[in-house]
């Protein structure tokens, strides 16, 4: 999934208005123009300043030059076109070969990041730098609070936080947060962060996904154990959020998915009474009972309950009838655009109850 990234030449970081060919610093380098070959399919035509910059960059790479100016030039090429991944690779190699300061490099990435915030290479570069700067093994004996005092960690969380403040669903930024949280084991602060984000925008699915990530500490379904206490707490939390915006896919999907994976019995023992109570409360009845997510949750819950009622045929049939009615309501009334889906669900319910 490669996307074309918006990018523009930024003049402020250019050291001199003179063309490189007239600068003393570069007089020893013979630029190498782009070889577009003889094939008419893809000739490249550059804007002049970018073309000159990349001609020199090509020459530097061809010579394998390891120098501060080569490092700076790679940075300028990146800032002009952050998706130029070859320039990133060369810059990192030079950073290591020259033994340059990693913190300063992180600061540089921060400075150019605003223009290239959806660029894959930028985020990967940051992650690699962070690992070089602070080895997680070195802080293994520290508490989470102590870890939160380490400048490198604080700076990183602040950086990602600022990006998320500007674009609360930035896929790269949330991935990077997960990387940092997992790398340094700083789970406690992350739950507080998630709550802040959900409070700011209860429809932010990225934040709900992060809640699951933190709650399960990214352990697989067969390892993580959800206690009844925690499940109750999560149900109560979700109910509060559903009240704010009943027709919001994220909390419904979160709680049903969480319980289905980690405590299926809690779906019908605790979640069902909670959502039914909400749908019966004067204040919320209309909004809750008209959202497809409520009905969809009912289908999932009843289906799970029916499984648990194997052997109790009459009760099972009753629960199946509820599930079937919910599918019917969805197909005809609350979610007709996905009628085919709900018809299928209804049909497979019948099959299951017949078994």
């Amino acid at each position, binding site marked *: *999934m490669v996307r074309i990234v918006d990018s523009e030449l930024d003049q402020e970081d250019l050291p001199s208005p003179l063309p490189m060919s007239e600068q003393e610093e570069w007089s020893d380098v013979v630029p190498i123009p782009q070889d577009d070959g003889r*094939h008419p399919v893809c000739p490249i035509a550059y804007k002049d300043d970018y073309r000159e910059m990349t001609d020199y960059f090509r020459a530097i790479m061809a010579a394998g030059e390891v120098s501060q100016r080569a490092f700076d030039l790679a940075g300028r090429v990146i800032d002009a076109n952050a998706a130029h991944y070859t320039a*990133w690779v060369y810059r990192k190699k030079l950073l290591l070969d020259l033994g340059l300061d990693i913190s300063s490099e992180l600061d540089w990435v921060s400075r150019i990041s605003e223009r290239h915030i959806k660029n894959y290479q930028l985020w990967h570069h940051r992650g690699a730098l962070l690992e070089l700067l602070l080895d997680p093994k070195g802080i293994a004996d520290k508490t989470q609070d102590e870890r939160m005092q380490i400048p490198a960690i604080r700076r990183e969380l602040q950086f990602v936080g600022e990006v998320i403040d500007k674009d609360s669903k930035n896929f790269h930024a949330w991935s990077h947060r997960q990387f940092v949280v997992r790398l340094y084991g700083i789970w406690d602060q992350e739950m507080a962060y998630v709550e802040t984000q959900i409070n700011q925008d209860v429809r932010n699915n990225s934040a709900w*996904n992060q809640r699951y990530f933190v709650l399960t500490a990214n352990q697989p379904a067969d390892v993580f154990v959800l206690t009844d206490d925690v499940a109750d707490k999560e149900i109560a939390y979700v109910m509060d959020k559903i009240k704010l915006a009943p027709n919001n896919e994220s909390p419904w999907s979160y709680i049903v998915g969480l319980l289905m994976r980690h405590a299926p019995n809690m779906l019908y023992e605790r979640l069902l009474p909670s959502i039914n109570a909400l749908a019966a409360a004067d204040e919320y009845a209309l909004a809750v009972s008209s959202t497809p997510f409520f009905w969809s949750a009912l289908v999932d819950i009843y289906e799970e309950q029916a499984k648990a009622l194997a052997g109790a045929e009459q009760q099972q049939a009753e629960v199946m009838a509820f599930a079937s009615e919910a599918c019917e309501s969805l197909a005809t009334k609350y979610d007709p655009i996905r009628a085919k889906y709900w018809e299928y669900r209804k049909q497979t319910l019948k099959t299951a109850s017949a078994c």
Partner: protein
Amino acid sequence: MSQASDPVKSEILLVEKHVEYVKSLDKKHDEIEYWMTEHLRVSGVYWGAVAVHLLGRGDALDRDGIIAYILSCQNDDGGFGGHVGHDSHILYTMSAVQLLVMYDALDKIEAKRVVDYVAGLQDKVTGEISGDSWGEKDTRFAYISLAILSFFDAVDTIDVGGVVSYVQKSMNYDGGFGSGPGGESHAAQVFTCLAALAIAGRLDIVDRDRLSGWLAERQLKSGGLNGRPQKLEDVCYSWWVLSSLKILGRVHWVDRSRLCGFILSAQDPDAGGIADRPGDIADVYHTCFGIAGLSLAGYSDCPLVEVDPVYCMPVAVIEKAGLRGWASRLPKEWK
């Protein structure tokens, strides 16, 4: 309206305009986008080639020129860069190989070099696949590695179990997949994971109904599809969502008529091409995935070439390459 599933008749697909648009792409040297996209030129050619092939105009582009160009992008490590002189990356290696297959020229390269390059990107301990020698991990690369190797009948040269395990760890509570373990579900990542599992013959690990429901949920009132909850619709998800549903055997769970209407409304009626959504400027990426989406949705006003949902190439090409076997490796209960 809810029952409608026959593609719409009100708007038509501007076949000739789109062919001309794709052909004109290498002539726009004065436009900034042209040189800023140098690093992914190989993928750009792939998107254009798929678009014209699906429109039934596979002869529209200069075959010999494309083959020569692709060959010039191969590096000493066996991989391909996004353009001449750029470092190898698995993304562009995929596009390059797909183009050579589409133009029946895979024999122009040495299979072993490409296979060794791809196999070398797998972490021997975790089974994860990197995008380049630099180590970025992503479920996109899991798919691409298996796809490339399948063209050379060399899937067994990597640890397929390791790749499958990485994909499985990236499965979420909503049934979808993210870019890695813990990552939010995203329709494009869902496609890459399903296609990877299809090639590996391991779709049995998918929660078919839950994931299909989540994918169907991506359709908005406009008829268009989004990639995640609460995001805007975008023509490219016509491909990512529908190809996923096609692999799952559930394309009919979205309203295809309304989806076709949305894609057609994003066409540029003057210059050709398709944009991300109505009113925006067309580009080759959305043109490719809009047309591929129409093909999957069964748009019937003009004959579109059938597209393979795992490889995003014409079915006939994939058949000729002997790679339609994924369809026979679906879990028994799906058939």
